């Protein structure tokens, strides 16, 4: 390579480094906000638990009869929800979810069951479409910043499919957020909702600080009766689970992108260093060549 070619390559790698380092910083800033959104959900989830406890106590503790809690005898149709990102450039973030989802579907097929895919994020949707596994539900355009309304839409689709008998079980696969550097693939059963989930929520609420009006429930007015309120609280647990999965996935996506962009930036720096060495060597060779030519010319005159 000539000196000029090397110089051009150095300039282009420097441009790439500028882009990857900007993307790294953007991902880091958004990751902080994504972590704040995870924290912002906690007080709401806690308040839902306390209201469940109050309504359950007033209603005589009975949550049975809700169709979301009903376990099916044969689970021939299983919905698999893949939570991926709209964008790539995030390492193995998307591919590990898609791979886990395809494997889960194969396992189900081996048991004689049918998998129906639902996917969030353009990456998951397009991968499934490419494999001719068109997802029944497709949700895109929000993966970096999911709103509760997005989670509600997905959860309501799933709950309606479950109650109307199109699916007998619903599982969700997402990247759980551990730290900016670490994500883990999680697989959870969303439906049927486990009785234990509600019972644990009620038990946990008992240990949390009290809230207005709870001490005197004999005197509390209920609008409408507590049993109805309790039935309405149950689907909230499914919505909150979906929302939490979307939030964790968005934090994981940003963490993965930040890490991927940091190593791309580091790689670019290394390449620049190597190329600079190469350029210096080329320049040195050229100078040496010129000196030799001058010396040779001088010698021929002697």
């Amino acid at each position: 390579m000539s000196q000029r070619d090397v110089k051009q390559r150095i300039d282009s790698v420097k441009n790439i480094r500028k882009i990857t380092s900007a993307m790294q910083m953007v991902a880091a800033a958004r990751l902080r906000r994504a972590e704040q959104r995870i924290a912002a959900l906690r007080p709401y989830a806690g308040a839902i638990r306390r209201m469940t406890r109050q309504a359950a106590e007033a209603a005589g503790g009975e949550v049975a009869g809700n169709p979301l809690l009903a376990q099916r005898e044969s689970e021939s149709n299983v919905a698999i929800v893949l939570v991926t990102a709209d964008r790539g450039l995030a390492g193995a973030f998307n591919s590990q979810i898609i791979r886990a989802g395809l494997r889960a579907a194969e396992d189900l097929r081996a048991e004689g069951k049918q998998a129906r895919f639902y996917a969030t994020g353009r990456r998951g949707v397009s991968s499934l479409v490419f494999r001719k596994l068109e997802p029944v539900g497709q949700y895109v355009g929000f993966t970096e910043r999911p709103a509760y309304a997005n989670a509600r839409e997905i959860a309501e689709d799933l709950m309606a499919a479950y109650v109307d008998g199109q699916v007998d079980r619903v599982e969700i696969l997402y990247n759980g957020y551990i730290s900016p550097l670490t994500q883990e693939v999680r697989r959870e059963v969303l439906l049927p909702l486990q009785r234990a989930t509600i019972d644990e929520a009620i038990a946990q609420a008992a240990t949390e600080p009290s809230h207005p009006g709870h001490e005197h429930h004999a005197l509390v007015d209920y609008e409408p009766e507590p049993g109805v309120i309790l039935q309405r609280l149950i689907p909230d647990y499914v919505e909150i689970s979906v929302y939490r999965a979307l939030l964790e996935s968005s934090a994981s996506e940003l963490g993965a992108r930040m890490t991927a962009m940091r190593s791309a930036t580091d790689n670019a720096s290394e390449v620049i260093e190597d190329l600079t060495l190469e350029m210096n060597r080329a320049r040195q060779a050229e100078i040496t060549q010129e000196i030799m030519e001058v010396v040779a010319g001088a010698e021929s005159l002697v």
Partner: protein
Amino acid sequence: MARATFQVEILTPEGEVFNEQVEMLSTRTAVGSIGVLANHTPLLGLLEPTELRLYRSESEIVRFAQGEGYIQVGENRALVLVEEAIAPQDLDEQDLREKLRVAEADVASAEEGSEAQRRAIRDRRRWQAFLEVSGSSGG
């Protein structure tokens, strides 16, 4: 004369949107419209989508488009726990109209008596209520 006040906290899954002393709160439960004043009797209610109004005073009113949720009143405090509480100026009327159109189509196309239809009816009611809030803000 200024009326007695009480603390109102509005909490959504995306965080707290309001936490202040007010003279009155007005909203709608599954049973009907309610107004809550200071020292209200303890209450636990299901909230339906509507315009939530918080009266800092008779003339100063904070308004939100409020989604489904719960209200808990006691010890001179109120907790409003809702899926959404959106300031009227943040509502996108065109987007709401589109959502309402989809919900109406879903109500019509879903099987009679199915969960899918009940869900579409809930969506329709929510977007209608939000559109009314958006319309009454003049924006």
